[in-house]
């Protein structure tokens, strides 16, 4: 068929790119070995153009949409074009080499050739359970260098012209505490990238290479148009905000909105920290991209063009642009925090359109130990759900993953008990008071894990433990995110950032995530809403009287 540069053909190719991303996602999800990939869906797939601009994403996590492009660009930077051959496949996990996040997230990327020209890349990212490092699972709050967090893969060729680099694969396998999982997850990712490669070649053959490339370019322009339309509707100006964090650092952001630019200035921020709470500049860019999406065009269309209007300014050596070998294990809390500060900053400009503060933490929870029934070592690596903030006219959502998550699913208690050999004593809405307002915040969760064996360990990295979700327009602040360890002796300790807390038989890990903050003064809440909350037990009569002045 002759090359057709008509809009319908473009549309069909663009739809096909989305279909290929989805197909890669489905294939990878089915074959991955680790629960955090196939169950929690801590993974994403995507297609970039030849130079690494994201064209289509099958990610289930919005914070992963903007990762793969940065990885491909890092690969292109490190490998001369003439050294990249058909059948090659690259791996990176290092935030200083396009890995963006932390060492557990491994990105596999494959160039797609039409003849001798690269026309696109297929890529995927997934959280691999154990890449080595100083503690099982790799993430330790005690880490102060990247070296302690696992094996670094600096955008290297894992497969060369279809032939696996066995030496590299062997190194990866022996560095993992869970080598079978690593192999299973790796091959799932390789198969998905190859599948995408086949599909894109078919598309380029069918429509012609030039049409294929033109359709991708057209799609990027469309993404940009959508963002620009959104920007035009926003109040122009420069807005600044500073917020203290749980660790006492002050994060500052200044956002300038113009007709065609979204300028995020993070230069005036603390030096990088010794611990694992730094985020790469690529990671911080993702926070800016998500903030832009939220206020301009929250639709699912997102590509390189969508993000063109962003200008990001950082200072090298700061917590948002650290130097090697800064530790990154808990980068996501930093990324989440800076995203939240951006939203709070923007809320000043558009209070009617932004929600009050939500629990805003991944609440990464790692529990490991021997399974009492099988003797095998298990590791839970999971995020937690929490409460979202109220917005004008609407109470907040209860028990939903953070704004950084999307198609992330919790692990059913029935599966957790079988797989992990822990008892799940309860999973319910957090009963703690907070987040009241004309519209109230959603409830966080209370999740109790009970150890059934000695020598389990717990690692957590929660933010918004001390500095609470912010109320808007008179709404009450929400509650905090933390874990309580309740010993059989009755002793209770509270943790937000901790590594290797030992748990013995009968000890309880109580996860408590925040209730989102309220919007508007509690005195304005409709009496029927208060009555409904009382009936449903979201509110106690005492609290109703105290906060709402409500007497039945």
């Amino acid at each position, binding site marked *: 068929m002759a090359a057709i540069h008509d809009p319908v053909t473009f549309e069909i190719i663009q739809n096909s790119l989305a279909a290929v991303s989805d197909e890669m996602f489905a294939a990878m999800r089915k074959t991955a070995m680790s629960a955090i990939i196939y169950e929690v869906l801590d993974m994403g797939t995507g297609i970039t153009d030849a130079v690494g601009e994201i064209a289509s994403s099958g990610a289930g996590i919005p914070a992963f949409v903007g990762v793969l492009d940065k990885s491909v660009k890092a690969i292109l930077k490190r490998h001369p074009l003439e050294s990249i051959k058909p059948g090659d496949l690259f791996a990176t996990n290092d935030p200083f080499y396009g890995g963006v996040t932390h060492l557990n997230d491994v990105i596999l990327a494959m160039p797609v050739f039409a003849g001798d020209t690269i026309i696109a890349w297929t890529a995927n990212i997934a959280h691999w359970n154990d890449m080595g490092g100083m503690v099982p699972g790799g993430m330790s709050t005690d880490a102060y260098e990247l070296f302690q967090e696992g094996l670094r893969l600096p955008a290297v060729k894992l497969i060369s012209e279809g032939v696996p680099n066995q030496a590299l694969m062997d190194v990866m396998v022996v560095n993992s505490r869970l080598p079978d999982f690593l192999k299973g997850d790796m091959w799932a990712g390789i198969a998905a990238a190859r599948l995408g490669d086949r599909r894109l070649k078919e598309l380029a053959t069918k429509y012609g290479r030039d049409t294929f490339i033109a359709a991708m370019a057209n799609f990027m322009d469309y993404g940009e148009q959508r963002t620009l339309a959104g920007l035009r509707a926003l109040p122009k100006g420069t807005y600044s905000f500073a917020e203290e964090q749980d660790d006492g650092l002050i994060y500052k952001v200044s956002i300038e909105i113009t007709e065609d630019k979204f300028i995020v200035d993070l230069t005036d921020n603390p030096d990088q920290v010794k611990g694992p709470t730094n985020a790469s500049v690529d990671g911080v860019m993702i926070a800016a991209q998500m903030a832009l999406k939220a206020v301009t065009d929250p639709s699912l269309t997102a590509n390189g063009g969508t993000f063109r209007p962003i200008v990001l300014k950082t200072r090298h050596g700061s917590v948002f642009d650290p130097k090697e070998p800064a530790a990154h294990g808990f980068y996501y809390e930093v990324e989440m925090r800076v995203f939240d500060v951006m939203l709070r900053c923007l809320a000043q400009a558009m209070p009617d359109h932004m929600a009050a503060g939500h629990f805003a933490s991944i609440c990464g929870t790692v529990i490991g130990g021997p399974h009492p029934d099988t003797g095998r070592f298990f590791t839970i690596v999971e995020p937690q759900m929490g409460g979202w903030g109220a917005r004008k006219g609407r109470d907040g959502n209860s028990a939903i993953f953070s704004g950084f998550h999307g198609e992330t699913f919790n692990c059913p208690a029935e599966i957790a008990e079988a797989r992990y050999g822990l008892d799940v004593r*309860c999973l319910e809405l957090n009963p703690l008071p907070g987040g009241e307002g004309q519209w109230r915040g959603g409830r966080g969760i209370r999740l109790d894990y009970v150890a059934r064996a000695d020598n389990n360990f717990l690692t957590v990295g929660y933010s918004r433990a001390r500095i609470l979700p912010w109320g808007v327009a008179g709404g009450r602040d929400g509650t905090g995110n933390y874990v309580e360890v309740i010993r059989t002796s009755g002793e209770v300790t509270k943790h937000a950032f901790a590594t290797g807390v030992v748990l013995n038989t009968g000890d309880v890990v109580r996860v408590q995530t925040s209730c989102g903050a309220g919007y508007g003064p509690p005195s304005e809440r409709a009496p029927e809403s208060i009555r409904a909350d009382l009936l449903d037990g979201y509110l106690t009569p005492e609290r109703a009287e105290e906060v709402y002045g409500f007497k039945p």
Partner: protein
Amino acid sequence: MAASLRVATDVGGTFTDLVTFSIDADGRQVIRTAKADTTPPNFERGVLDVMAKAGVAPSDVAFFAHGTTVVINALTERRGVKTGLVTTRGFRDILEIARGNRPDFFNLAYDKPEPFVPRHLRLEIGGRMTYRGQESEALDLSELDAIIAGFRAHGVEAIAVCLLHAYANPAHEQAVAEQLRVLMPEASVVASHQITREWREYERTNTTVLSAYVQPIAEAYLNGLKDAMVAGGFAGQLYVMQSNCGVDSLEATSRIPITMVESGPASGFWGAAELGRLIGEPNVLALDIGGTTAKCSLIENAQVRIKTDYWIERSRETSGYPVMVPVVDLVEIGNGGGSIAWVDEYTRLHVGPRSAGAMPGPASYGRGGTKATTTDANLALGRIDPNYFCGGTITADMTAVNTSLDELAQKLGVDRIEAARGIVRIANNNMVNALKLVSLNRGYDPRDFTLVAFGGGGAMHAVALATELGCPKVVIPRGASVFSAWGMVMSDLRRDYFVTRLIGGGETAPAEISALVAEVAANARQQFAAENVSADQLKLVALLKCRYQNQEHSVEVDVTVGSFDAAAHAALTAKFHDMYEREYTYRLDAPVEVVGLHMVASAEVGKLELGKLPVTGALLASAVKGRRQVDYATDGVHDATIYDSEKLEPGMSFTGPAIIEDPGTTIVIHPGNAVAIDPYGNTIITLRAGEN
């Protein structure tokens, strides 16, 4: 011909349809159809009306299959009864917490779907089972007194019981449900183990809740239907279409009506599987295009694929609600003949998901519709004959068609015909992507499948879709527009049992597998005996769900129902490795474990014996109605021969470009396609020369 008719009735939101099938003296299958208004709340009246219209007395009917949207409509319109939930202490919020996911992931103004039972009607009881089905904390039934008082105070009419790990051991659930039935006889009670024996507490709880929510409504509906039929002299068994492509008895359906939730599309896919068996096409991509939606499913080795991860109201924008019952694996998109084409603010053309519906309908209906639909585009391109629109029953309003297309063309900056082509290409692309979801996304290559297309719009698009996907062949069944009803009267009495059980790869595995299969088989035999199906009539297929240790997603490996020894276990493992590798391109040396069983129990309840059609020896020319210019979008404009489907007979063959016109549908045949009419009157279209 007393009591020889096979009748399928289908109660939809607007119309109640009836199709009867019989075989005439020449062996020709005779199909009659009738349509009447749906008559809520006394739906049986509409059924009797439509039978009267067709001249069918209940006493003439040998086999009566009934499909209804009453369950799905009650759910989507939130018209169920006030429902309470009894659940394990510490887990009453599971229904509200759900899984925490958010498909519309850039949207921070997302609203999580509301649970079907509010928190004050979700009550907890103590007692625990472990994942191995052992009691770890005793049940105290005395706690039910307070629970019942709470339910009564709020006028609860139906109660769902779902306790943790009841899939592994339902003893606590059974005890709770029995006690509730005794102490609160005015409420209907259903426990999760009656519906499913699979793990995942949110999915199971929600499924139980939805079944309870619609149970009183469905039971009243089905009893009304039965009473009306019996009063009219019907003496046969009344079967109700299920979501698993089978039928079940009215009594069983009344207890667990949620199994009807997606019964609408299921019968057509079963029909496609049956047709495939008849004509030697075991691998089928089945496509049903109606007025508002297109639905598709994949059939491999003549088997429909039944799964239990169905969700209602789920989309890219919202997470929806899980229904963990056996449902045919299907993808449905808002893209049918009546789907509206529109241009967005970025000058991009879209088709659907909004539909013009029955009123006003497509512009061409001349009932005031001003928006161009897929049907209108097909008319403008000459693919549908304006003078034989809807079998000649409607005069196509071509002025309205042209006006509606011109509006789009102007926005797109193209001419009318280019706009119409764009609509057809976009609509086709939407359907291609749906077909990819059931094939490529499940690891199947569409080039290995024959596309069987039906419904009013299937035949119009089938060739273009098959070409795009690389399917070598298209089959348009005889009577394509009522093919779903045909599937309904061909259905088996069928139940799919899904049971979660973890069995490792150790020495005890063969005995454990043996016990699992025997237990489920015994249960199936007992249940079918209650439906008067003897053990020798019952067909059991056991599919073990196997996986590599710690993987979640399993492969179903079939095993024989009977003794299962170490050799059988070794064979199972070997087969698993092979099947896994075929689907996923690699194998692991990891241990293989069993995670559960899927058993299909079915019994034939009397099928239509389809005979070959008589051949009169008429010449092909006698079936030619004429010629006209037809626009095949990217395949160009061609002078096509128009055939009358009712005059085509077995053995006739010709090549495209052509159009076959049937009162219910139009078959579009592209240039170069080879067409043959098979002995049963089906239209077989071979896409590529030299292949079949």
